């Protein structure tokens, strides 16, 4: 009896793991079908800037400084030569990318150019999220989000 219950626990737990892995893999591989419309820059939970991508000509460079205990986050146009915590974002028709950051690891920069709605650019140390908002094209599977 004891061996039987252990075997069934083993079976159920393995099944849960495999199911989770398969669903995850499917969600990663199924692409979204939305069209990029605007870009939202969120720093520390606050939306600091929203840019309309449809009316964008050329490129736009923004530098975001995360807020601290005594001041809110702020955004300036262009690159910034500073030692302060910051992320520099480049927004163009082809997509959005982070081109400069002071953070460790620089995962935000290595995420590259993103142009699919829902796919965020994230910098955990600077609490920055850049996300592309989409325009729905027909029926869209919201689960990929």
């Amino acid at each position, binding site marked *: 009896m004891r061996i039987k219950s252990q075997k069934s626990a083993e079976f159920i737990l393995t099944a849960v793991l495999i199911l989770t892995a398969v669903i995850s893999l499917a969600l990663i591989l199924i692409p979204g079908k939305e069209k990029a419309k605007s870009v939202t820059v969120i720093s520390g*939970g606050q939306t600091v800037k929203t840019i309309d991508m449809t009316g964008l000509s050329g490129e736009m460079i923004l530098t975001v400084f995360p807020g601290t205990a005594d001041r809110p986050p702020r955004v300036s146009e262009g690159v910034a030569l500073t030692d302060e915590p910051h992320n520099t974002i480049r927004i163009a028709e082809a997509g959005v990318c982070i081109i400069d950051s002071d953070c460790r690891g620089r*995962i935000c920069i290595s995420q590259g150019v993103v142009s699919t709605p829902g796919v965020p650019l994230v910098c955990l140390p600077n609490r920055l999220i850049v996300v592309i908002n989409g325009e729905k094209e027909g029926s869209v599977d919201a689960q990929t989000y």
Partner: protein
Amino acid sequence: MPRHIENRTKKTVILGLMSALSLAVYAIESLIPPLLPVPGIKPGLSNIITLYCLRVFGKKEAGAVLLVRILISFFLFGNATSLIYSLIGGAAALGIEILCDLLLKGRKLCITGAFGGLFHNAGQLVTASLIMGSGAVFFYAPHLALSGILTGCFTGLCAHYMLRIKIPENP
């Protein structure tokens, strides 16, 4: 020296060594550059020590070693944000590992480890969404689930082979 005191001393020494080992593994792991451009993916090698302590000593001791490792790494590297991530991820992982270990009666450590990795990443993802103040990070939930299962399976296997090494009774 009475035997029970000797055993207690030995246990204290080994748990201290385990904490040091866990911290060393954690420090070495942080030197490995990120392999994938997804925030939060890492090998989680200190989970090997957590699983080992859970099997050899029990849940209280595993929790103590985990807590000591997290606190010392906070004092050494001094990052309050990563302290919150570590505490929540560690607690979620240890919690599910204790449960799995009970259900599996201590066998199949790679399943226990995989659940630990999965719940560690889930805990950290929820923390990230709260700290960043946006649900956009949940986009990475599938990536983190998959990597948590794979790395957890690996650390579970490592712990399994580590358990085969016998600590000499009277060296």
